[in-house]
């Protein structure tokens, strides 16, 4: 390994990236354990404190129009523009956010027993997929929706010019994530009950939707693999569940304007506490667990490996006696001075001893001043060390 500033940068990068990866994997694993270990409660009989619910998202107030005219209870949008810096081989491009929009109003989670209020501003929202699309690939209807209701205020060079097929226009892309009405949700957090008499809701389509998705007798979600499994692989994926239930909610809401609606009791509010943060995911628990497990061990291994490299290289460089092959075959060679002596010596003294014939002084000098010696100086001391009998330096 060549010595110098690049080494330090490499080691620092390994430690930083490895540490970051490992920490994030550990955090993800802890969250995964929490999701798996927490028993699920029903909304109407949930105890106060930390609970988890599984149900469907339903609007408490307004919704926002999202992709393909879907209604979303939670929506995040970013408009990004491509910027270039440098030229030739040094040319680099990066996406910078130029406009944002978000809809994070409280919404309901509905299970077979009742309704609870969720305030997304209080917690962490885990949306499985962030949709990224280039502006040019978006159809005209969707562009119209974005321009009319999502982008707030004028944005420089936007929308991009279409003159000369847009060859010289700036490049834009959009990033969207959403939680649609009727989408399956997993929520965990601090549950506080509300006064029963003060809380009941009537919402267009909710009666029809609950009848469609919940089983009246055992108060569980109806088995609907046949209806939801669109690719006929025998299992319902998270995406299929989201699309299917959102579609059911859409139909129920369209018919809900004419159907007689029942009222639903709101049993409480789920939020964050000092010990538990509100967590909302756009999937059932089984799908969420699968998502959280995905590539987790790879992340762990990658982080640990980078950390080990970041720690191993300095160890190898500073303690060659421990790490060199000669340790195993010949035992520890006297190639550096004992620590007590090193502390007492200065580089000038070491140089004098090295030139005077003490190989150990040359080695100590090489180790101590590794990052300050020039290549020529380093080579010189290595040659002297070799000449004084340190065979490792004769290679």
């Amino acid at each position, binding site marked *: 390994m060549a010595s110098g500033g690049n080494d330090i940068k490499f080691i620092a990068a390994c430690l930083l990236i490895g540490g970051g990866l490992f920490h994030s994997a*550990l955090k993800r694993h802890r969250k995964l354990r929490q999701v798996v270990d927490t*028993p699920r409660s029903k909304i109407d009989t949930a105890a106060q404190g930390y609970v988890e619910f599984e149900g469907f998202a339903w609007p408490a107030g307004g919704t926002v129009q999202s992709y393909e005219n879907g209604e979303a209870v939670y929506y995040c949008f970013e408009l990004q523009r491509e910027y270039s810096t440098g030229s030739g081989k040094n040319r680099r491009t990066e996406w910078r956010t130029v406009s944002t929009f978000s809809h994070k109003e409280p919404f309901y989670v509905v299970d077979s*027993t009742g309704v609870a209020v969720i305030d997304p501003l209080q917690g962490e929202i885990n949306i499985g997929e962030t949709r990224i699309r280039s502006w040019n690939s978006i159809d005209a209807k969707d562009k119209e929706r974005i321009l009319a209701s999502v982008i707030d205020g004028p944005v420089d060079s936007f929308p991009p010019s279409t003159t000369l097929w847009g060859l010289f226009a700036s490049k834009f892309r959009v990033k969207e994530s959403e939680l649609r009405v009727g989408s399956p949700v997993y929520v965990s957090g601090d549950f506080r009950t509300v006064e029963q008499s003060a809380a009941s809701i009537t919402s267009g389509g909710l009666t029809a939707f609950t009848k469609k998705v919940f089983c009246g007798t055992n108060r569980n979600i109806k088995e609907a693999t046949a209806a939801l499994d669109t690719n006929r692989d025998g299992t319902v994926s998270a995406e299929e569940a989201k699309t299917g239930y959102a579609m059911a909610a859409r139909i129920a809401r369209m018919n809900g304007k004419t159907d007689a609606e029942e009222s639903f009791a709101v049993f409480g509010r789920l939020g964050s506490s000092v010990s538990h943060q509100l967590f909302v995911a756009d999937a059932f628990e089984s799908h969420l667990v699968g998502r959280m497990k995905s590539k987790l061990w790879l992340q762990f291994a990658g982080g640990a490996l980078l950390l080990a490299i970041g*720690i*191993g290289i300095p160890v190898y460089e500073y303690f060659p006696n421990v790490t060199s092959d000669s340790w195993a075959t010949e035992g520890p060679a006297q190639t550096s001075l004992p620590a007590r002596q090193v502390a007492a010596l200065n580089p000038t003294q070491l140089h004098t001893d090295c030139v005077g014939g003490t190989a150990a002084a040359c080695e100590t000098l090489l180790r101590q001043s590794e990052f300050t010696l020039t290549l020529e100086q380093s080579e010189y001391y290595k040659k002297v060390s070799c000449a004084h009998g340190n065979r490792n330096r004769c290679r």
Partner: protein
Amino acid sequence: MNLFILLFVGIVLFGLVVMAINIYNGLVSLRNQLERAWSNIDVILKQRFDEIPQLIQVIEQYAGYESQLLKSLVNARANYGSARTVDEKIQASGAMSIALQGVAAIGEAYPELKANGNFVQLQTRVSQLENTIADRRETYNEAVANFNTRLDQFPDVFAARMLNYQRQTMFAVSEAERATPSLKMNLPKFGQGA
């Protein structure tokens, strides 16, 4: 070569330490979840226990103190009152549920009792409590299943033995509870009441 051995040993040691901390914390957290889930049921069982004297008072006016239903209610309540461990409470709670099944049926046998406002109110309240117990029982059983699974899993099994954690019993429905309430078994003879 030695560098790689050192790296390997380092990674393995680091991984083992992280895993040990993780397993320990995980088991402690599960144990707390379980205790909390049980406490949440216990609160409701206590509420049901407290409703029984009032229920007995109302039924007594119509069915008489000597009725078999009242005896079984009094016994079940006494058993629950003396239960200390979770297992004992689960058993006593089952007996109390069986005794309470007869309360619904006695209303059919005594039209005057069925028309009594207090009885109706108490019956509704007990029924609500039974529903809550059923739901919380599901939550408790899930916590027990999670706990027992982790106790049997490798390598958690070693940590569990060191912590002396034992498998827990599910709050299951007994055969007697599952059976339809029998009028013959629970009700006093007609005409015996006040």
